[in-house]
């Protein structure tokens, strides 16, 4: 069953210099129980997508086009009241740098209870506390730490508590925005396994945002690669990571450092990120693309089908050229 369908979504921010086109004409679908990963460089619009889905864009943001169908309703028609009821229940989000967002003067269990109470004021407190204990079990924080204050937790424990809070109202979709960025690799690995387990156990859909391709590859079945506010390649994890076709995806994979990387790994010329205020209309990656032609600077690329589930936003001749080297 399709849970989420985003159609031609564009989001901009008003700035002194004009509208900054942070997200541009984005479409994707997500089935119930599946996981979708967004990867792309810093500033490419990943968090903006998450915030749009949560109805939490800042004051200066404008949604200029598109539709977001979730479970039968178009979220973009929601009134404030509807958003309040929907958040946490329909979609909940683990925000980027959320670890620091736990209230330092309130005990962790009370913060999670509050998250549940907002949506279900009629459930008796004892019942809610049972749920809190279950959630802690699920994210593997021992019960005797329930009454702690956040500063008594390590980074990894705080992140688990945040995930517990996001799960509190049993949402259909969880958006996790860089949930492991501040954690060490050992803790990161534990959290990723946790997320996969929860997804399986509750049939929750997951949107996972990260700049780290290894992390996304671990958790997500489907992948969207973003560049400069646009999706430039999408497909199944194996398709995108095993046979990447868009020049940016290839660049991204080639610059990934692993323990067996060559010290002389080829590093691209510094890429100037595209200017999202004065857009030229050509391909946004053209400046950094080694295959660019005149066409790329003057014409907007289009979606090229590479398989029934794998597409790239580029020009056919460029995609073929790139495949041969």
């Amino acid at each position, binding site marked *: 069953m399709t849970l989420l369908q985003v159609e031609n979504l564009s989001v901009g*921010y008003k*700035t*002194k*210099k004009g509208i900054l086109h942070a997200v541009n004409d984005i479409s994707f679908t997500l089935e119930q129980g599946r996981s979708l990963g967004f*990867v*792309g*460089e*810093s*500033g490419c619009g990943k*968090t903006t997508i998450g915030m749009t889905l949560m109805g939490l864009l*800042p004051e200066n943001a404008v949604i200029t086009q598109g539709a977001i169908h979730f479970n039968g309703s178009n979220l973009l028609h929601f009134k404030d009241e509807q958003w309040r009821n929907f958040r946490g229940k329909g979609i909940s989000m683990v925000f*980027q*740098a959320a670890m*620091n967002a736990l209230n330092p003067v309130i005990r962790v269990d009370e913060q999670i209870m509050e998250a549940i109470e907002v949506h279900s004021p009629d459930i008796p407190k004892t019942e809610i506390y049972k749920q809190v204990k279950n959630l802690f079990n699920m994210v593997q924080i021992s019960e005797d730490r329930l009454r702690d*204050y956040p500063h008594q937790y*390590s*980074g*990894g424990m705080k992140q688990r508590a945040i995930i517990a809070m996001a799960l509190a109202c049993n949402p259909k979709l969880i958006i996790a925005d*860089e949930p492991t*960025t*501040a*954690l*060490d*690799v*050992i*803790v*990161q*690995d534990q959290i990723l396994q946790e997320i996969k387990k929860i997804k399986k156990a509750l049939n929750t859909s997951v949107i996972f945002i990260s*700049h*780290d*391709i*290894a*992390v996304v*590859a*671990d958790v997500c079945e489907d992948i969207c690669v973003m560049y400069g506010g646009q999706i430039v390649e999408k497909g199944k994890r*194996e398709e995108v*990571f*095993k046979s990447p076709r868009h020049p940016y995806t290839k*660049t*991204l994979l080639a*610059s*990934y*450092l*692993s*323990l067996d*990387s060559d*010290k002389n*790994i080829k*590093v*691209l010329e*510094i*890429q*100037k*990120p595209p*200017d999202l*205020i004065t857009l030229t209309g050509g391909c946004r990656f053209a400046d950094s693309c080694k295959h660019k032609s005149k066409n790329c600077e003057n014409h907007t690329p289009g979606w090229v089908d590479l398989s029934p589930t794998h597409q790239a936003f580029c020009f056919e001749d460029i995609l073929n050229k790139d495949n041969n080297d």
Partner: protein
Amino acid sequence: MIEDNTQPAPIIELSGVTKEYRTKATFFSKGYTNVMAMDNISLTLQRGEIFGLVGQSGSGKTTLGRLLLKLESPTKGIMKFNGKPINDLKGKDLKTYRSKVQMIFQDPYQSLNPHLSIAETILEPLIVNKIGDIHSRKEKVIETLDTVSLAPGKEYYDRFPHQLSGGQRQRVAIARAIVLDPEFIVADEPTSMLDATIAIQLFKLLQQIRKKYNMTFLFITHNLAAAQFLCDRIAVIHDGVIVETGPTDRVIQQPEHPYTKKLIQAQPKFNF
């Protein structure tokens, strides 16, 4: 390393440095508990090297950075900069020291002042240290923004931190740290928020800066692959204790301590 007969003192020398935190009694428990954040650390950094510090969350890495910046004092031990003790620096000497030593903090969501524009954030150290005039400062800020690939610098000049993405904030923090051309930089997880293409460019940038100014770096990271790429030597820290030090390639290819082995095991694998 540059051969030199005069044998200059190492830029940083730590001997027996210990930092204990005493956490306050809570409402329910009387008395104090002590957290040993760093336990008897001895370390020497040569001028111009990039030294990596790797280890799990909570092992004491940031604490070491904060001590070197003199944001906190060690409970025990001696710290030297260019051969001179810095434990008791005060007043003018402390101010001079602080202009030579900078830190890039782990979390740009906390380290940038939300009320200062990007320009003001990077200008501040220049103003505090009375460097240049209005025009040269502005030029320097734009040049520095370019250096960290926030380009064109002019476009970011008037923005505030909340108008930037996470990674862009981190680049502002880096710009702020390098704007004074310091001798020594503590970089605490500077790329944990950046994607691979930008992270690697930043590493290249640090290498260039090191070469050009003979700057010294303490590079704190969880990412062994990044350490391998960037660092001449590394130390592995576990529960406040350095368990292994050596040339990066040796430590990663022939790890001796079980914790180092565990860390290598847990590195994310990306093989399709």
